[in-house]
């Protein structure tokens, strides 16, 4: 654990006094301290293109009075700097008349080990694997024109000091390994991308030559795309494969169920609590407690232990995801979903690992049930307008379905739908739920946080596919 006050002219007890004094008439608030170390090693175009290391240290001081949030952050952990922040907060909340809520739930559970993945593997070992990746892929096919592979590793230590001196802390490891391949055949170029990651050591993900599986998958996707034909345009049935395609859940309903948008009534879901928003058999949870997953957290960035939150149960909307601020204003409790990218940002209610649970259909049944449609297996990313409810996601590997059979691969296309109604169009839920490979980052209000998704195969009756073939 980091000792944030070791090299500072500010002692822990002085900091506690400033915090308590600043927050005395506020409803909530805390000092958030963060020390993160991260590395990036990139192989590209046959060379180690980049090896970089970042060390980031800072604090964010937050005071909340009723709905108003005052925030100030700085890189300098010093008496002067904290006092200046305190003055900023107090000048914004001059008329605060609240009562500080000291209560915060506790838990002894931890969902990852206290390790620093960067130090667990030497630079030379990492460079060797990247070089092996390049050689392995380039020896597989002469169509390969470009290989990019990289390691991203991080250890983030956080400490939350609340008014009265209560302190909560967490050390979070995170790694990612990505491979991207570009193929060329008869002048046509296509790419394939795949990666793995989570909150464990590099070796957990790379052992037994598992890196080769990552390479093979990227190459397989690129090869499929090389044979793809233009995607169709218009409304049709869509079968989604298990795992990563759950980006659909994340975009279509996840963001719309975050507490802030519902408190402000700007989400298309704000007046649908307790109502049917999905087909029977559809259950969606947001879970921060799965061991070592990318979206898991022992405590959130306000110090609340994370949990498994049921969002939609058998088609009925049950819960929103809450941080402390929105929970208090909506008279409910925090679900341990208060997150921030780093100390530069305010806390917002965010997703962790968002998952649709298994049903009892098979993927074969779904394909057979489609006369004309598409089967989407892999995705690039998505986006949502939470107010209108319209969301998109971009497929990077998809096939046409003709008369109950999988046909030719089709080019990447954007799929668009309506969040509050799309899950009512789910007519079959598969028995093959799968987690994503651990590479997702979710963006909201300019803040990126690591998240996970999971789902079984599903059949959607009607979605608009944004291809070019009419």
């Amino acid at each position, binding site marked *: 654990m980091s000792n944030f006050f070791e090299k500072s002219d500010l002692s822990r007890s002085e900091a506690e006094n400033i915090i308590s004094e600043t927050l005395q008439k506020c409803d909530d608030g805390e000092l958030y301290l963060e020390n993160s170390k991260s590395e990036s090693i990139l192989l590209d175009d046959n060379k180690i293109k980049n090896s970089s290391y*970042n060390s980031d240290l800072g604090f964010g001081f937050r005071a909340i009075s009723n709905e108003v949030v005052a*925030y100030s952050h700085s890189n300098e952990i010093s008496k002067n700097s904290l006092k200046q922040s305190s003055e900023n907060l107090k000048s914004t909340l001059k008329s605060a008349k609240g009562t500080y809520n000291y209560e915060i739930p506790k838990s002894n559970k931890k969902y990852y080990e206290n390790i620093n993945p960067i130090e667990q593997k030497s630079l030379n070992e990492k460079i060797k694997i990247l070089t092996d990746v390049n050689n392995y892929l380039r020896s597989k096919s002469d169509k390969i024109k470009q290989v990019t592979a990289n390691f991203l590793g991080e250890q983030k230590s956080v400490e939350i000091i609340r008014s009265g001196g209560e302190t909560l802390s967490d050390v979070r490891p995170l790694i990612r390994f990505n491979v991207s391949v570009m193929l060329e055949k008869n002048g046509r170029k296509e790419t394939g991308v795949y990666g793995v990651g989570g909150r464990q050591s590099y070796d957990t993900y790379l052992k037994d030559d598992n890196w080769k599986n990552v390479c093979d998958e990227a190459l397989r996707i690129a090869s499929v795309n090389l044979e793809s034909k233009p995607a169709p*345009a218009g409304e049709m049935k869509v079968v989604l494969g298990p795992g990563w395609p759950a980006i659909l859940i994340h975009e279509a309903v996840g963001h719309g169920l975050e507490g802030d948008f519902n408190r402000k009534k700007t989400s298309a879901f704000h007046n649908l609590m307790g109502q049917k928003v999905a087909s029977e058999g559809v259950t969606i949870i947001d879970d921060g407690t799965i061991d070592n997953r990318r979206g898991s957290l022992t405590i959130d960035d306000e110090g609340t232990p994370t949990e498994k939150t049921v969002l939609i149960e058998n088609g009925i909307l049950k819960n929103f995801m809450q941080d402390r601020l929105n929970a208090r204003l909506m008279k409910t409790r925090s679900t341990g979903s208060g997150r921030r990218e780093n100390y530069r940002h305010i806390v917002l209610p965010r997703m962790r690992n968002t998952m649709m649970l298994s049903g009892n259909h098979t993927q074969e049944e779904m394909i057979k049930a489609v006369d004309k449609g598409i089967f989407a297996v892999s995705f690039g990313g998505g986006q949502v307008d939470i107010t209108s409810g319209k969301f998109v996601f971009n497929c990077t590997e998809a096939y046409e379905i003709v008369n109950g059979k999988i046909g030719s691969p089709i080019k990447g*296309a954007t799929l668009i739908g309506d969040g509050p109604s799309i899950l009512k169009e789910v007519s079959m839920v598969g028995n093959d739920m799968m987690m994503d490979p651990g590479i997702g980052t979710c963006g909201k209000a300019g803040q990126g946080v690591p998240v996970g998704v999971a789902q079984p195969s599903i059949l959607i009756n009607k979605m608009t596919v944004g291809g070019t073939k009419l």
Partner: protein
Amino acid sequence: MVKDQEFLKKKATYCLDLANTLGATDSSVVVKNSVSETVNFRNKKLDESNRSDDLGISITTYIGKKKSSISSSNLLNENLNILIEKCVETTKNTPEDEYNSLPDRDLLAKEVKDLDLYDDTHIENDQKINYLKKLEESASNDKKIVNTESSFTQNKSNFVLANTDGFCNGYKTSSFTASSVTVAKDEKSMERDYEYSSKCFLKDLDDADELGKLAANQTIRKLSPKKIGSEKISIIFDKRIAKGILSTFTNAISSSAISRGTSFLKDKVNQKIFSDKINIFDKPDILKGLGSRNFDSEGVRTDTLKLVDQGILKHYLIDTYNGKKLNLKSNGRCGGTSNLYFENGNISFKDLLNSNSKSLYITETIGHGSNIVTGDYSVGATGFLVENGEFKYPINEITIAGNFKDMFQNIILANDLEFKYATNSPTMLIEGMVVAGK
């Protein structure tokens, strides 16, 4: 207060000297400080105040043709000592790359012109609050507006870029940004839209009243949208979307994408990729320009480039590393373009709307559907159906798709260019794109 040049230069020199002592043959360093103050309003009341003071340093060390870099927000010498030692160690263990080097000395910027990028005015939070009150009053005038969120940010930044070839320069910049996001509601729908203004000088910022009114009107007109059928149709891109197409073009001509072979515009220099009427400029020396700069992120002089001349691609955007790989000289575009724009077309906005009996006017796109390897484009879109020059009704839950190779050839521009962002386009018409809807 933002840190002064003297402080930043002292830190930069300290790092270069230390790297040299520890065995680096060359090195470069950037030291930055940025101080921002933001006030947010929601439904005519104070919602958030936010002050940020960000320090940052990034150092790249070279040992011959080996290179590595570090960055940190902790500028205490004690921390820098540890990090620079680590950086030099890592450099020793990183394989050589023949193209690694500092920029050519003769390309480095010799003088720093005053481009009028810094306004010393400090706007107190109380004044920001007055502006936002006025803005939100105007934005929430109509009963259909059910939520307003507005924001005012003042940012002051300063930086120094230095390298062991004697380059050591930097300057202050400022920005004042106001924005308003409104939500409108009727029986059938709820919609969101926005307006914003960002300027180097406080006095140039748009009027609060005007900004609020625009945000509200742009949202209200989107209410009760319809979904249309799938068809081939002409698309008119609002200026705020058209500039995104220009950005995709610049991604595709970046020397990194070109040297890696991952761009559909590779080997297209001196070829016609747009129609004859299209000219594209990147002009770094516009006074008060949002993208203006004296040199690029390596210290290389930046001159105005006519990237596209009568439809013909004239330049890639070249940095030192990829330039050496492509056997071309850096044209000062490490870190991208400056003030980039399409020159005006020769028809009015009204004539552009009238040029087809039926078209779609797009005001927002969602999704990351631009592929610069293949040129394929497919995104979710929101907008209006235009018939015989008139806006008929709002449209959503559709996608628009095409391939940039064809789209570029079919661009027709109106004559309504304005410099609102760093990258700007007049209203743009592209014929023959595919809409997917019902």
